[in-house]
């Protein structure tokens, strides 16, 4: 199962828990799993059929695309952090930056 | 307002042009003569991107009227290289990577040429003083100053 790190501001959804083991083949399934255990995640993380433009998803230290089909492995670490952007519209390219490694 | 008939010499060629009285020399060069090497960065004399040499002296062409070019002898960036090749300053700018975006480059080259015309052996401080009216936002000036000093050396050796 993948380890999902819960952003500080969403920990009220998980009663303060900051790491959760969730199974899922892709990021969409992981968010579904999160949301079924702790309702509210989907609304916060997903915009239409993709990850919210203001959120960067990091799987195993790589910023990944916003597509919900992005593959998650059994031992993956998943982080949600704010993306660095400048007032982006949908489909408009914002200034998205790798916040880590 | 009636257009004015102006006879002038640009890059060694005598030229006749019609200008509106309110047209600047920069606009005259760019829009009238399609010499777009001089750039507009501020239109008030504070960036130097439009620098040309007029009667032996650098001027901000945005602060000169096209009408004032009557009987003048003007050198623009387009007149710096010859059919034989680049001016040593142009070569030195390339070799020193003294440009990034390149928008300020024509102004710097023209100002540098006028510096070396009057002072073939400038110190770093003199180069910096002479070029203070030309803003560059990309390079931090380091490589530009080195290029001018290199070109001065090169031209001296060539003489």
């Amino acid at each position, binding site marked *: 199962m993948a380890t999902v790190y819960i952003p500080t501001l969403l920990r009220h959804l998980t009663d303060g828990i900051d790491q959760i083991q969730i199974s899922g083949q892709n990021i969409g399934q992981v968010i579904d799993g999160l949301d079924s255990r702790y309702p509210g995640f989907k609304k916060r993380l997903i915009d239409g059929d993709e990850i919210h433009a203001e959120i960067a998803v990091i799987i195993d230290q790589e910023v990944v695309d916003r597509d919900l089909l992005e593959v998650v492995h059994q031992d993956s670490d998943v982080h949600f952090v704010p993306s660095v952007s400048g*007032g*982006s519209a949908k489909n*408009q390219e914002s200034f998205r930056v790798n916040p880590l*490694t | 307002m009636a257009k004015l008939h102006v006879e002038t010499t640009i890059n060694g060629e005598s030229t006749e042009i019609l200008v509106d009285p309110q047209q600047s020399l920069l606009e005259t060069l760019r829009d009238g003569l399609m010499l777009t090497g001089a*750039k507009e960065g501020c239109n008030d004399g504070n960036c130097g991107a439009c620098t040309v040499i007029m009667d032996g002296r650098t001027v901000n062409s945005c602060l000169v009227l096209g009408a004032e070019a009557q009987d003048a002898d003007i050198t623009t960036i387009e007149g710096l290289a010859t059919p034989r090749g680049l001016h040593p300053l142009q070569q030195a700018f390339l070799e020193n990577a003294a440009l990034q975006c390149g928008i300020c480059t024509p102004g710097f080259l023209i100002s540098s040429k006028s510096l070396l015309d009057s002072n073939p052996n400038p110190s770093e401080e003199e180069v910096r003083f002479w070029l203070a009216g030309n803003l560059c936002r990309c390079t*931090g000036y380091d490589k530009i100053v080195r290029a001018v000093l290199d070109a001065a050396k090169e031209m001296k050796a060539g003489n």
Partner: protein
Amino acid sequence: MATTTTVEQKTTEKVIGTRPIRHDGVDKVTGRAIYGADINLPKMLHVKILRSPHAHARIVSIDTKQALDIPGVKAVITGEDLPEPPSQMQNLGEGAANLRFLSDNAMARTKALYKGHAVAAVAATELYIAEEALSAIKVTWEILPAVLDTESAMAEGAPLVHDDLPQRPMEGDQAPPPNVARYFRFNIGDTQQAFEESDTVVEREFRTQMVHQGYIEPQTATALWKEDESLTIWCSSQGHFNVRDQTSNILQIPVSSIKVIPLEIGGGFGGKIGSTIYPVISLLSKKAGVPVKYSMTRAEVFEGTGPGSGTHMRVKIGAMKTGKITAVDVSLSYEAGAYPGSSVASGCQNMFSPYVIENAFIEGFDVIVNKPKTAAYRAPGTPQAAYAGESIIDEVAESIGMDPIDFRLLNVAEEDDSRVDGTKHRVIGAKETLEAIKNHPHYKSPLNGPNQGRGVAIGYWGNAGMTSSCSLIVNGDGTVNLVEGSVDIGGTRTAIAMHAAEVLGIPAEDIHPVVADTESVGMTSITAGSRTAFASGWAAYEAAQGVLKELIERAATVFETTPDQVVHEDGTFRSVSDNDKKLTFKELAGRLQRVGGPVIGQATITPRGVGTAFGADIVDVEVDPETGKVQVLRVTAAQDVGRAIHPSYVEGQIQGGVAQGIGWALNEEYVFNDEGVMQNPGFLDYRMPTSLDLPMIEAVLVEKRNPGHPYGARGVGEVPIVPVMASVANAVYRATGVRYQALPMSPGNIIAGLTQKDH
């Protein structure tokens, strides 16, 4: 002079790491290069834009009739001419809300939200006629109270800039303060307990002002809307695909109907990523039926484009006597400008990324104010936070009596260490970069005067990957045409070409790079995020691998053998089985037509493995205690560049970033009056450094390879600005005994600080 420190063994590359003359160089030194404003088309009209004189005002009415009656005026538009974006924002999500903001920023519909906000545009046969037409447009305003800084914007009862700002709850159901568009928080460990156990705790407040990227070329573009409803835009932007997509969104027309042709660009630094001008000029061209050109004046550039945020920052830090940082507690408020979207998130994430911090509470507020909508500016959001963070780190180091570099080295982050947002560093060179300045002769050299001081600081930036495309075409004479989509702002054509040259074993000069329009190359993201040499270079590498594979097959045909029997070394193809059978790249290229036709290669990549970057500076200053003027005497800037593809242009990025940082530290700021009108919208009073204000800037290239890139490159463009303001402030402290907690450290502010110290 620049120096290079290689952390690992140098590899055997032949082209990577050399300094070829840039391919576009001759055009740029002869004035032939065509920038945005250099376009002239038959029947072309000139555009002027009417802008709000008020920082916050309702548009009661706009009357354009008199303007239209002026001979030579061919089209006038107002906000009403832009398509109405989806209005049911709450139901459509924030994508729709952001689209409305973008469209509104292009031209105000009901309210002007900052001085300089566009409200109408005119296209006329001559520029002066367009100017005259502006004064004939009658706007009736209802002036509203303006909010001009984060504190007053967030105060209870503050005037609301947006009546319908979509605000998400901060935590649980707690509503954010007024005018706050976004709120972040990172919380790890237990800061309260850590502060209690600390030997020393320092808490400070910092302020910085809005600043501009200061590119020398004003925004400019030309549009032609043709009878078949297709649209062509010529522009100087940081990404023409972005211009195409943004224009398609705002005008609600198909992407396929828009062609964007990139021209040379005179600087950007983040300020030419998004722009509001394209939809406006497109609609004017549609109305007029001919091409229209618009170039901003310098004042419009300052007042009507996106500057970098002004900030208000509170930082608390604890440490043990041993030098170990125990905890940080930070609150950052950034001015977003008139619409949501400052870079406060980046400030929160990056300010302490050079260090291992086990207990951290960092929050950020994205605050709407009646000022221009902010945009990216070189490492957006991070230099401000680094100024605060690295100033206070310096103070803590001093308070426990440690050398400022040793203190930083003691806490420095390395591979696998966690950042405050919980994510982990990969292979990084923070430690090596600090060691490079520590061991540099500059750090050991004496200062030469009573009013001199030396400061150091380090900064971090994450860099970006995004998407790049590239095509290669092998010509019969052995040269190669390279078609790419990254706008070249600082010599990237050559860095990209060098990737292909290295793979193919030919000189960089034999590659002919061209930056192609949106119809001639695959999608390529903006030139930003320090990504271009890294990602577009990598795309060229991949395309070249494809070419090489095909060439090996063709060589096999010529050698009458199989591809696995052909090797390629240094640009020569050789048969393994028969040493006499060999062909140079050029020879093989000449035979391609007879063995299957031309060879092309192409690649589109969205690379992973982005390498992050650290930069550290030593700055010496001298302060005139009577006038308050600060002169920078010497700068050494070390940076982990991974592998310098073209060292000259890497040094150039470092030197340019340092120069911008010095300007930001000492003199650059937007000065607003009480009504929100900028007082200094020109290069005379927005004081960017001149050649006489700066010393030579020594760049030290630290090469700790990025394992995520074929040649080990890291993005280099942004991080050099990050530590500069802090290193200048730390130097000024050592020269004056005053810790300046507000930027700029302009002469008047220096004297005010000295006066306060004496009392």
